[in-house]
């Protein structure tokens, strides 16, 4: 079958901060870059990042990258790769200044320097007093970064394919990635994009869970494409639940609220975080706070008629502070709950927020798999950056302010490596028609007009199963049932069909393709969670409550083929400094 084709040096799938930062670097290096995005680029989920970006600028309090590195390693519960973490923390001030020069309107101190706020998990002197490391543009940092990067890309003449959905990666017989099959949503027409290098920057998979903070677009498309291309996913059991989502709705109330002095109360009016984290209290890292809230509710100290949430109190800060520092939060709560947080505490509960796991990469953004020469053999032609990737800087638990940093640092690093690759590989490899045909089957499968299962129905069931069987607290029985249920749902996908077979903006077909992606990732997540018999960071097992560094200080790898688990060591050796050996994580 002959399909229309386009050729580029680099294909970037995903137009959030990671994809756009990489695209800009490449366009400025005069590479021919295509960015494919299923929604208009500035509607990517980066726009929702309220908190800010961490960098040890020391503008408010003393700071340095080594302390930032310590906090990130500790926050990761010692599952983060220390070479990648060192690289990220050292690069942080530079990427922030670059953004400032591009036009991101960071909030300022009176002396003109970039304002930095205190966030959970930040310390001075390797675990000492609270640091202030997060640079923010009011509470719209993600939006400011995304729009600035988009405008810079337009100026650098990056080529955008807006509202194109990526179906699958294309590989030649020796496994090199040579582009992707994509679908133009407006016309329903497939298109082959040939590229010497391809970067996946498709973001996370928050839609796995019923209560989540994520936009609907976060269906883990790139991760699922990698799985189908025989690339394993790493550390998928680690899903961050943000401690403070609006109870029953999912929307995120930023950690910045607690950074500005807000605190949590249980049904007895007690500041319970003092019991769980005597020093950091409400600013302890996210997994600690999530578990504390869950425990309070489980032990009957919740709030409300059903005692099913706790309260986040900020009315003591005064209307002026709330209005000035946290305007977005105030209006969100007013719109969805009809109450004013400057006067009344907000009902909150943990909500699925961030995918720590993802496509395994090294710190150059190259996708790596276990092969003949070791656990980290690069897949030729393929890169990944940001939430879809697992580099791994967040390990078992991501710190607030480190996700924007991750996408900027590793989007840029991947682009720099690609520039070198393009110099050595000047020609496109021949297209592999078998690979195109295979990707087309994924599309044509949805042409069938009968079946017994609906896409909506299966998605709802999947999200409920994941919430109940792969949430904040986990044990063997719950997880085993979770695996069985997801396997059953996956089998039922064969009987799923869609009613709409039109071509133009057929959103039903896109939603079906997204559900396939979610199904693949759900299985990776729940299988990895079942097998990891310890508690570490966001992965908390009631039947294995302790961290087990002897058996489990290693990364898990889930292969789609045979649902096989595989493991590889954590990279504990940094680039230039001494390793941080694992210690008990207390705040």
């Amino acid at each position: 079958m002959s399909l229309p084709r386009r050729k580029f040096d680099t294909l970037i799938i995903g137009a959030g901060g990671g994809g756009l930062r990489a695209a800009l670097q490449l366009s400025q290096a005069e590479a021919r870059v295509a960015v494919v995005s299923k929604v208009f680029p500035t509607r990517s989920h980066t726009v929702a990042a309220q908190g800010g970006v961490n960098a040890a600028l020391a503008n408010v309090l003393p700071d340095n990258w080594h302390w930032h590195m310590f906090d990130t390693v500790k926050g990761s519960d010692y599952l983060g790769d220390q070479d990648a973490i060192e690289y990220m923390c050292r690069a942080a001030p530079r990427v922030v200044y670059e953004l400032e020069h591009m036009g991101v309107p960071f909030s300022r101190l009176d002396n003109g320097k970039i304002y930095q706020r205190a966030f959970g998990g930040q310390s001075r002197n390797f675990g000492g007093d609270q640091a202030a490391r997060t640079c923010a543009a009011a509470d719209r940092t993600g939006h400011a970064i995304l729009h600035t990067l988009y405008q810079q890309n337009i100026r650098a003449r990056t080529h955008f394919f807006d509202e194109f959905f990526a179906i699958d990666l294309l590989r030649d017989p020796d496994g090199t990635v040579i582009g992707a099959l994509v679908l133009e949503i407006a016309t329903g027409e497939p298109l082959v994009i040939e590229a010497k290098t391809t970067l996946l920057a498709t973001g996370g998979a928050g839609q796995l869970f019923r209560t989540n903070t994520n936009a609907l677009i976060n269906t883990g498309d790139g991760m699922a494409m990698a799985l189908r291309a025989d690339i394993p996913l790493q550390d998928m059991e680690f899903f961050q639940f943000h401690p403070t989502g609006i109870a029953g709705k999912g929307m995120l109330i930023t950690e910045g609220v607690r950074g500005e002095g807000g605190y949590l109360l249980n049904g007895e009016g007690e500041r319970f975080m003092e019991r769980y984290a005597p020093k950091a209290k409400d600013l302890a890292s996210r997994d600690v706070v999530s578990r504390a809230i869950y425990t309070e509710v489980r032990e009957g100290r919740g709030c409300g008629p059903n005692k099913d949430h706790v309260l986040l109190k900020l009315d003591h800060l005064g209307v002026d502070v709330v209005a000035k520092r946290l305007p977005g939060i105030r209006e969100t709560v007013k719109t969805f709950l009809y109450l004013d947080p400057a006067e009344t505490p907000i009902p909150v509960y943990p909500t699925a927020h961030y995918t720590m796991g993802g496509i395994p990469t090294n710190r150059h953004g190259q996708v790596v798999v276990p092969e003949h020469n070791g656990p980290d053999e690069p897949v030729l032609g393929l890169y990944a950056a940001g939430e879809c990737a697992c580099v791994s800087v967040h390990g078992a638990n991501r710190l607030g302010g480190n996700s924007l940093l991750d996408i900027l640092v590793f989007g840029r690093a991947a682009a720099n490596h690609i520039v070198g690759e393009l110099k050595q590989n000047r020609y496109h490899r021949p297209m592999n028609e078998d690979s195109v045909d295979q990707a087309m089957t994924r599309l044509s499968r949805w042409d069938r007009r009968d079946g017994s299962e609906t896409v909506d129905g299966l998605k709802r069931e999947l999200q409920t199963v994941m919430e109940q069987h792969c949430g904040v607290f986990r044990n063997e029985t719950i997880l085993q049932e979770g695996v069985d249920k997801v396997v059953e749902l996956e089998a039922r996908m064969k009987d799923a069909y869609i009613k709409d077979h039109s071509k133009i903006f057929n959103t039903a077909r896109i939603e079906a393709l997204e559900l396939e992606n979610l199904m693949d990732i759900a299985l990776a997540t729940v299988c990895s969670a079942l097998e990891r018999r310890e508690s570490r960071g966001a992965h908390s097992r009631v039947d294995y409550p302790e961290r087990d560094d002897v058996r489990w200080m290693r990364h898990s790898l889930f292969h789609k083929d045979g649902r096989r688990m595989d493991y590889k060591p954590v990279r504990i050796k940094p680039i230039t400094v001494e390793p941080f050996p694992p210690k008990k994580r207390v705040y």
Partner: protein
Amino acid sequence: MQTQTAATELNRLRWQCRRGMRELDLLLLQFLDSGYADLDANATHAFTRLLDCPDALLLEWLLGRQRPSDKDVADVVQRIRRSPAA
């Protein structure tokens, strides 16, 4: 043919309601399913113009922190805000 065009337009709008923030997804899609059909031609055009605006601005408007200067868009925003919270 008329209905097919309408269905296609509804599909197009459904995709334009896919935004970068959960808050916007919920408010816009909920309105598309429950309130959009009742809009007159003028308001329908205003809704389309609304969807062309950047996410941060939509959030300002839909959360009631600012008002659009375009009166028709402002009316649609009010209708979305008045429809039951998603």
